[in-house]
Each structure stands twice: as structure tokens, then as C-alpha cells.
């Protein structure tokens, strides 16, 4: 059964008047190695889901997703100038919810000219409506040689708290490693999920060695992984982890890796964002269980 259909069916069983607010238990968190600050294991991505243009109905729906995210204990929201209108949509939601000062604002610089980076960053900041970003990342390593020094200078001046780099879908891992070894970055964002596990070989161990926080993008392969998994029954032993579905199963696998600081699933559904944050409340699998989870999915 499709996850959305199942959730809609179950919603009919909820007593009238129940607000659907998240569990009182806060989601598990992990420390950012460079500072010790703890952030929840589950964040919120905004690729495609928040790129809704000027549609007032869709923007209001995105704000409700953000409301549910914050109520469930979420903090980190990730975006980029590459994501169309996602940044102003996030900003509108933050203003509406009064969360501009409490969000962990993670954005990116994505422009081939280093000289134009500050202008783009300032435009992004205005879209978000935040005083400053918590984390700025060089998106897909585009012109990183020019942008990283500027970001590090911003951090030194107190205009930014963390600096990072990103890639996705297994691209440019060699260059990512090179930057991780040579630059004083705080975060690296890579693709990591039940099927895309290349980063376990070198990048995740290197992140632990260098004290670099890891953000995992594409936890569901933009939904394709979940669609494939939902054709199969969740294994009975998943109940040991408190998983209520494949989404939590997939997220728990990711965030249980000791090197991973946060995963950023993107969604346009309030029910799904609550479910995603629920993955950070269950029992995180140990190494043996992780191996069992990966083997089970690989065999499907």
C-alpha cells in the first residue's frame, strides 16, 4: 500500500479534536564535531518540494509542513539558490511561524563567479529573512576554491557559524575528499541511503577522523527508493527499532551511522514530516542491525 494512502486511511481513525501534534519525546540529536552543538538527527530538505512559485495555496501548505517539522522537534532546514523559489517560500513560512531566529538555517552558494558569491548569499539571506545563516555550503563544489575562503572569512567575522561543501549522487567524491583533507570545513553533505553507500568506504570515516559533520541528502532517492520498498512488507524485526514504515526504516539506517549528523528528507506532506521525525525517536540500530537492514534491502 502506498504510504500516503495508508496514512490517509489511518487518519480516519484519529479521534476528533486530536491535534496530531508530535510526541512529547524530543528527537535524538547528534553533536556537530567542531562546536559540540547538538542538532536533531532529522532535518528538512527543500529540493522540489518547496519550489512552488507564487502559488498561495502551495505556499501555505509548505508553511504547514514547516509547522509540523518544528513541532516535532526539527531544526535544520536546507536549501539553495538552485532550488527555484524554495528560499522565499521557506522565508515566508519562517516569518509566518515566528521561527526565523530558532531555525538552523543551512543554505548554499551556487554561482561560478567567486566575486558574485557575497551578492548571492545576501540575496538568499533576505529570502530566508534570517539575521545570518547558521551553515553555508559550496553547492556541488562549484568554484569552491573561490567561495570557501570567502565563507571562512565570514565565519571568522561572526557573520556565519559553519562552513561546508556539498555533492550528490556520488559525484566528485575524490574532490570532496581533497577538500575535507585540506580545508577547515565544519560540514560535508553527501548522498547516503540504503542503496547508495559508497561514502561508507572513505568519506564517512574521513569525516570522523577530521571532525566534520555529515548531512545525508537523497535519503529516499527522491522517493524512488520508498516506492520500490513499499512493494514489499516491512520485515517483522523492524519492530525492534520502533519503525512504523519503510521511511523510518530507511532514515534510521542512515542516521545510525556514527559519522552522520543529520539526514534531510524533503517532503510536501505534514504526515510524512512527522513520520520522518519519528525515525529519530526509535531505537537506533547498532552495527549488526545496520548490516542486517542493508542486506535485507539488497536482497529485495
Amino acid at each position, binding site marked *: 500500500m502506498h504510504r500516503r494512502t495508508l496514512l490517509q486511511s489511518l487518519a480516519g481513525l484519529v479521534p476528533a479534536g486530536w491535534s496530531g501534534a508530535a510526541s512529547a519525546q524530543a528527537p535524538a540529536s547528534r553533536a556537530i564535531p567542531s562546536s559540540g552543538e547538538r542538532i536533531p538527527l532529522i532535518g528538512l530538505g527543500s529540493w522540489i518540494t518547496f519550489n512552488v512559485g507564487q502559488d498561495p495555496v*502551495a505556499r501555505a501548505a509548505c508553511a504547514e509542513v514547516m509547522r509540523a517539522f518544528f513541532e516535532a522537534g526539527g531544526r535544520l532546514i536546507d536549501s539553495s539558490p538552485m532550488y527555484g523559489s524554495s528560499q522565499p517560500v521557506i522565508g515566508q513560512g519562517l516569518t509566518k511561524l515566528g521561527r526565523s531566529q530558532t531555525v538552523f538555517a543551512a543554505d548554499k552558494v551556487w554561482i561560478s563567479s567567486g566575486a558574485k558569491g557575497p551578492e548571492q548569499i545576501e540575496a538568499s539571506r533576505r529570502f530566508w529573512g534570517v539575521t545570518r545563516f547558521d551553515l553555508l555550503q559550496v553547492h556541488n563544489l562549484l568554484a569552491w576554491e573561490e567561495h570557501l575562503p570567502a565563507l571562512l572569512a565570514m565565519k571568522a567575522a561572526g557573520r556565519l557559524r559553519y562552513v561546508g561543501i556539498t555533492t550528490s549522487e556520488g559525484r566528485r567524491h575524490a574532490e570532496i575528499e581533497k577538500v575535507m583533507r585540506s580545508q577547515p570545513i565544519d560540514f560535508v553533505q553527501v548522498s547516503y541511503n540504503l542503496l547508495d553507500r559508497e561514502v561508507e568506504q572513505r568519506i564517512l570515516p574521513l569525516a570522523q577522523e577530521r571532525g566534520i559533520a555529515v548531512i545525508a541528502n537523497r535519503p529516499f532517492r527522491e522517493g524512488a527508493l520508498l516506492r520500490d520498498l513499499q512493494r514489499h512488507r516491512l520485515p517483522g524485526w523492524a519492530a525492534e527499532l520502533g519503525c512504523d514504515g519503510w521511511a523510518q526504516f530507511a532514515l534510521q539506517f542512515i542516521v545510525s551511522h556514527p559519522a552522520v549528523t543529520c539526514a534531510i528528507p524533503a517532503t510536501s506532506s505534514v504526515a510524512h514530516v512527522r513520520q520522518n521525525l519519528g525515525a529519530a525517536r526509535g531505537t537506533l540500530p547498532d552495527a549488526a542491525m545496520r548490516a542486517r537492514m542493508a542486506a535485507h534491502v539488497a536482497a529485495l
Partner: protein
Amino acid sequence: MTEWWTYRPSDFLLFSPRTYHRLFELYNESLWPVQPLVTLLWLALLFALWRGLAWAPRVATVVLAASWAWIAWAFHAERYADINWAASGFAVAFAAQALLLLGLAVAGVSREPAARPGLSLLAWAICAHPWLGMAFGRPWREAEWFALAPDATAVGTLGLLVMLRPAWRWAAWPAWIVALGWCAISGATLWTMGLPWALAMPVAALGAAWAARHGAKLKIGLRAGAQTRPGLPPT
């Protein structure tokens, strides 16, 4: 862009199908009730072209040029660019196409005698293409009206170009390239979103290209001895 070979078309799709559909719904909402009036105008122009009226080719080309200019601004620059950073480039291309068509009209155009393929494609663009989504269950509010939305307009432009005999035959090629290019881009976008009518654009493009090659004379002067003056009924 390093490792370019690892990128798929879906990597460049920045929005969901729902957002794409809402784009047209909100666009139509802002224009209503202009759409049926524009359609009536084009049905009249189609009739005039079919009857071979002398003024029809030039007037149709000018009106179509205005449509490309409108879409460049009202659709690409004002709306599509919100969700697709490539739309700013599309706006420039559509504006350029408006100038190209205007130039063709100013230089002079007439209608080819063998106009049936072009007329058919134009008729399809006006009457049927806008409703492809509805045929697959989408609401009528999302219709992509000819002369107001890019896809149907590009298809109809190919139909017009097939049936036109411009005074400056070489000048029609850039207009062909822009219209065919949009068919490719939009077809790829629709295909990546998994929309069932995605093939309509490339099929229309191939049909127009076939008609231009086989059904009408090439616009680069392969018709030896043709002396018809632009603006007069074809002989």
C-alpha cells in the same frame, strides 16, 4: 559542469508535476476570459489561410509574433522563471522568435499552394493540443491555450512555417530552429515528469519537419521559376 555524463534529464527538473500544473491553472485564472476570444481570432485566421486570402499569411504571422512576445514576458519571465531558472533564457528565445516572425511578415510572406499539412498542424494547435491534458484527466482550468501558452504556440508556429512562402526564404530557418528547439525542450520536460502527453511535442516537430521536406517546397529557394510576389494569392 564536471562529470556531465552522469546527469540525467531528471536532475534538471526543479519542480513537481503538481507545481507545473498549478502554473498553468494560475496563469489561465489571471487571463480569463481572454482565452476563448484569442481562440476565436485564430479560428478566423485559420479560415482565412485556408481560403487563401491574400492578407492572411502576413496578418497571421504578425499576430503570432505578438503571441511569442506575450508568452516571453507574461509566461516565462513573470511566472515560469519563479520555478525554473532556465526560463529567463526561454524568455529571451521567445522574444527573439517574436522579432524573427515580425521580420518575416515585414519582408513579405505568402501561402504555399500545398498548404494542407501546415493548415492541419495549425488547426491541431488551436483546437486540440490545448486540451491534451484534459484527455488524460487533467482539469480544463489547466488547458494550454494556443497563442497564450508556449507548447501549443510552438506547434502552431511550425504549422504556419510549413505553409508560408517568405520573401526571404533563408530568414525562416531561425524561426524553425526556435520552434523545433522548444518542442524538444518541452517534450523532455514533460517526459521527465512522466506526463502521458509528452510525446505530442516531438511528434508535432517531426511531422512539421516531414511536411516541410516532402509536402511543401523548401524555403531556401529550391523551387525554380517561382515568381509569386509576396502578399498575393498563390498561383
